[in-house]
């Protein structure tokens, strides 16, 4: 069986992605335009107001959200960068051997200390 893998990767490998992007955009544009043209349009003041289970809505929905979500996003950014750092390490795991493993243990140890601190501070508790 011919199981050859690519030996050298070139930027031109990405060209077919443009075809896929074009198809995706064409499909999205087609469905938006057709549904815009086909559907009826009847407006009224009550119908256009935002749906809140029949109760008259108070104010608008541009209201601040809980700080918990914001903290989750910050922690996500930090740990995401950590995960990104681990990709080149994991791919080369065998070449780097025990030395690489110890290096990563040190890196992860510090981050886990931070993780422990966050858990202890109750940042990830959503019950209250």
């Amino acid at each position, binding site marked *: 069986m011919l199981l050859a893998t690519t030996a*050298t*990767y*070139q*930027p031109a490998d*990405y060209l077919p992605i443009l075809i896929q992007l074009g198809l995706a955009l064409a499909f999205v544009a087609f469905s938006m335009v057709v549904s815009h043209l086909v559907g009826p349009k009847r407006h009224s003041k009550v119908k256009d107001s935002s749906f809140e289970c029949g109760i008259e809505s108070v104010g*608008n929905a*541009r*209201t*601040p*959200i*809980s*700080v*918990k*979500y*914001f*903290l989750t*996003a*910050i*922690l*996500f*950014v*930090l740990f*995401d*960068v*950590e995960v*990104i*750092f681990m*990709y*080149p*390490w994991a*791919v*080369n795991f065998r*070449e*780097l051997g025990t030395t*690489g493993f110890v*290096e990563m243990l*040190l*890196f992860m140890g*510090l*981050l886990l*200390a*931070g*993780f422990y*601190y*966050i858990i202890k*501070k109750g*940042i990830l508790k959503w019950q209250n």
Partner: protein
Amino acid sequence: MGTSLFYFLAFVALISALGVVFAKNPIHSVLFLILTFFAISGHYLLLNAQFLAAVNIIVYAGAIMVLFLFVIMFLNLNTDTEPHKPALAKVTAAVAGGLLLLVLIAALRNVTPVGADAATFDSQIGMVNRLGLVLYQQYLLPFELASVLFLVAMVGAVMLGKREEGERNF
């Protein structure tokens, strides 16, 4: 082909970067910034730095911009509550930005870019396995120091996120 793609991507990057600054709606600014990151990733791909291109999308467009969106939603976006900026603040901002531009121009004026030597150039240098070997052997100390930086950032985030009495939100 490569050159025209470069100019196209540079054009998109510049236009969308201007869009970030000039958009009235902060959500539009975020979307323009995402487009800018895509154009920059396109440049990385042209340079065959595939891992860098993917990381740019995942970290900047995927993670940090989500944080920005949360921050925008975290703030009160009603027009009536937006504080009116005095003219002095605008002038100060323009002067500060202009000075930064001046410094950048002065720093980059005399730079002569060194082109790659075609004979010794290795096109596979930007692949993830090459990058890993260099990062974990040659640049080990900066890498380990980065984890200390993350730790500090985590503590900072926890301090910032302390709840205040009498907050009302979702």
